[in-house]
């Protein structure tokens, strides 16, 4: 096994499915620089290489005895270390959640940074030099995309587009405001010679301002996911953190090039503005295009279900790195791709693939997030700091002030255009939720030291700001939300009646808007839906049947409940048909009518019980009582249906199909009124449509 010894070298190019392989190359360089051999020593490997290096053929002739047991660490060093880091991160996560209360008081991100700090301290203490700093490339190319993909894929699109104007306004104008404000005020501070900062130019300050004003989606996600504010607020802050990537990229590159150019002409400023449009719109276009291609590809994957999830990940990652290749906004590209893909892919892939995609995405994003925070902690410890009280404290101060001012002023303007204005509470949470995180951290490391002699000062300032926002703001935001009594989100089970109401409501609103001749949101949404139905869905979805959200939600819920009931052992002889229907779904075009009926029959028979359970009781509380009551209920219903079916079979010999379907309606419907019961008897003679069901 020792034949491959020697220093690790970058691996040969392999198919892109192995995303870790390029990471090896990058980390190899980083690890080698930082003297990773001693680090591995720390990590518990014993002395390396009990086998001497292989002699280059022909030069020396040393005979080595056969070794019974060899240890060859360099051979596996890179994957070994990566695995250990990820394992450590995940174990830390388990540790936090063992103690119930901890994650509710302190957000996970803080704890992870602390762990990172600890590790960094150990490594620093052991070898007296800075531990391997997180390479900005690793962050931007591997760690950030999964998180943004996860966020974009599960984004509530409707809410997002309803608030799009506000989000865009905050993202673009807000970030500009912050960047320029912080930059100029810091320049003012730097002019005061007492602080010893006079060598920092205006442009450098502006660059610093632009990179520190970016609200970070990772940090926002990490903190907001525990506090459950209402969806509107969440989407405003989170949407802003995603969309501001475009402007951050532009400003950062703009000021960096300006710092390196000798003269700045007016044309350059216009080029900067044009660049913004190119970056933002270009990123989105790439994302949408690849999203459509992905949807189109999944149209043909019904023969090879196993690799369906792969396409989702590949295409979205491709959109990200394509955008990065052109220096466009990768975050916007991957978000646009995920949002586009979501609708169509969901219908083309099988249920199992969909579950795989969901879980794998969540897993990747969770690992990435954990690694990011740990690395931030590790990278903090080290020798690349320069402390200057004035600069650091004023940076922090200005960040807070300008953010608060910015949100306040911008909200006053945007409230004129909003129908539901944002209250002070909302504004406070938006301002307070402007957390900085790993993006500014990585951007500051990317600064070229040649142009920025005071780079270490910037790094220190950024770290202080990030720590402040993540720790102080992250920990205090929860009690503040409770103190201010901000509206929380109500995570109820989706109910069919709610869906019906929502749809009804949409149509009423659209109707009223039509009557008053108003081209509102609904108008555009309707137009898009028509276009979507006419062209896009036909092209991108394999079995295109016009879909109703009510029906699909209903079916989804029923299947879910049937599975729950089967798992809890209530239904005795059903499982086969339920799983059969799921399994067959991929093979036959629609479910065959007999299977459908069987499924329906089972589901509707237990309908009352299912509803009852989801609406009023939590499954984990009241378990004992609920079970007894449920059993009794089911028994009663079965008795009813049996009675009814006896009555029916006497009268209707010919349409068996029909009785099967009708029984449940009777046993349930009789609760509503006598009228309903008689109504349900009526259609029997005259509905030839039901015979169609049989003949299918």
């Amino acid at each position, binding site marked *: 096994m020792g034949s491959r010894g020697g220093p690790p070298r970058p691996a040969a190019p392999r198919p892109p499915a192995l995303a870790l392989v390029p990471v090896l190359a990058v980390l190899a360089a980083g690890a080698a620089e930082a003297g990773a051999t001693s680090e591995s020593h720390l990590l518990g490997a014993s002395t390396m290489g009990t086998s001497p290096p292989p002699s280059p053929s022909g030069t020396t002739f040393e005979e080595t005895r056969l070794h019974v047991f060899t240890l060859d660490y360099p051979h596996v060093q890179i994957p070994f270390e990566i695995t250990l880091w990820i394992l450590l991160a995940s174990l830390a996560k388990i540790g936090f959640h063992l103690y119930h209360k901890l994650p509710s008081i302190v957000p996970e991100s803080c704890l992870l940074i602390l762990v990172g700090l600890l590790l960094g301290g150990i490594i620093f203490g052991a070898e007296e030099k800075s531990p391997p700093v997180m390479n900005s490339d690793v962050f931007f190319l591997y760690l950030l995309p999964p998180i943004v993909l996860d966020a974009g894929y599960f984004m509530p699109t409707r809410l997002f587009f309803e608030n799009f104007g506000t989000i865009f306004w905050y993202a673009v104008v807000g970030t500009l405001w912050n960047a320029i404000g912080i930059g100029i005020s810091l320049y003012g501070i730097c002019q005061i010679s007492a602080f010893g900062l006079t060598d920092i130019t205006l442009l450098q300050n502006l660059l610093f301002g632009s990179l520190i004003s970016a609200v970070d989606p990772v940090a926002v996600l990490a903190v907001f996911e525990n506090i459950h504010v209402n969806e509107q607020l969440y989407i405003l802050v989170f949407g802003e953190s995603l969309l501001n990537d475009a402007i951050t990229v532009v400003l950062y590159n703009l000021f960096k090039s300006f710092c390196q150019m000798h003269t700045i002409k007016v044309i350059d400023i216009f080029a900067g503005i044009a660049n913004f449009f190119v970056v933002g719109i270009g990123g989105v276009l790439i994302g949408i295009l690849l999203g459509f291609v992905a949807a189109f590809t999944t149209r043909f994957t019904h023969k090879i279900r196993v690799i369906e999830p792969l396409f989702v990940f590949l295409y979205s990652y491709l959109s990200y790195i394509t955008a990065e290749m052109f220096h466009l906004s990768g975050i916007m590209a991957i978000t646009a791709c995920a949002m586009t893909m979501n609708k169509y892919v969901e219908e083309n892939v099988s249920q199992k693939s969909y579950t795989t995609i969901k879980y794998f995405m969540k897993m990747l994003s969770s690992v990435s997030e954990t690694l990011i925070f740990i690395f931030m902690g590790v990278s903090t410890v080290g020798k690349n700091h320069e402390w200057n009280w004035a600069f650091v404290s004023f940076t922090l101060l200005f960040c807070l002030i300008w953010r608060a001012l910015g949100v306040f002023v911008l909200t006053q303007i945007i409230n004129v255009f909003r129908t539901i204005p944002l209250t002070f509470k909302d504004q406070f949470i938006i301002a307070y939720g402007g957390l900085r995180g790993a993006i500014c951290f990585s951007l500051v490391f990317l600064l070229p030291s040649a142009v920025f002699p005071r780079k270490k000062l910037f790094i220190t300032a950024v770290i202080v700001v990030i720590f402040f926002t993540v720790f102080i703001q992250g920990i205090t935001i929860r009690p503040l939300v409770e103190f201010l009594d901000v509206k929380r989100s109500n995570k109820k089970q989706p109910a069919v009646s709610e869906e019906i109401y929502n749809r009804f409501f949409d149509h009423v609103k659209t109707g009223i808007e*039509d009557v008053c001749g108003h081209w509102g949101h609904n108008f555009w949404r309707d137009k898009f839906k028509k276009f979507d139905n006419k062209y896009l869905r036909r092209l991108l979805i394999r079995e295109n049947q016009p879909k109703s959200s009510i029906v699909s939600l209903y079916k989804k819920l029923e299947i879910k409940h049937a599975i729950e009931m089967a798992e809890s052992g209530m239904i005795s002889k059903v499982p086969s048909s339920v799983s059969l229907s799921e399994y067959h779904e991929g093979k036959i075009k629609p479910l065959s009518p007999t299977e459908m009926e069987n499924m329906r029959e089972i589901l509707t028979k237990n309908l009352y019980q299912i509803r009852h359970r989801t609406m009023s009781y939590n499954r984990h509380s009241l378990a004992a009582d609920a079970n007894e009551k449920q059993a009794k209920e089911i028994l009663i219903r079965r008795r009813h249906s049996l009675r009814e079916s006896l009555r029916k079979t006497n009268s209707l010999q010919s349409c068996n199909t029909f009785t099967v379907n009708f029984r449940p309606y009777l046993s349930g419907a009789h609760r509503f009124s006598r009228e309903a019961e008689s109504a349900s008897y009526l259609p029997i003679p005259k509905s030839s449509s039901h015979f169609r069901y049989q003949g299918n």
Partner: protein
Amino acid sequence: MGSAHSVPAEMRELADRTGFTSEQIEHLHRRFKQLSQDQLTIRKENFDNIPDLEFNPIRGKIVHAFFDKRNLRQESDGLADEINFEDFLTIMSYFRPIEMNMDEEQLDRFRKEKLKFLFHMYDSDHDGKITLQEYRNVVEELLSGNPHLEKESARSIADGAMMEAASICVGQMGPDQVYEGITFDDFLKMWQGIDIETKMHVRFLNVDTIAHCY
């Protein structure tokens, strides 16, 4: 009121009663004139001229709501044959957005009014209850745009939704208990979690009378 340009005093009176600003009233007045073809009142047939309304599955209910006397705040019941501008404004006032300076009581009243409007749309026979048949009717209309769906699905969905309502409003039901229908209070209970006052509104100031009817 009517085709003549509103006198400021009348306008103010209307503004007070319905809560619209004079600008909004002027906009809506223009629209009213278009719809009524310069007549003083609108009839049901006038609504046929709105092209986009054709595609709306619950078009019938919407038009019906305009003529429903309960919505027009008249004491009597049933349907009016024609409505004038003031009635038109009354119906539109149900869709006004909330204002920042509303207090709790006003908000609550506002919300109840909007929900009452919706309730009337469901309850087509005006008996104050939404029965299973009426609910089924609603769901069938909603899904009528979908030619592939059988009536069966619509009915089972309506049944399921009705049972959800029953479980919220009445809770545990005995085996022989009959649930008559959703009353207005039950309806209120069901909409408790949803912020109707923030969603049920139209931006009246952006009325674009270019979208005309022919």
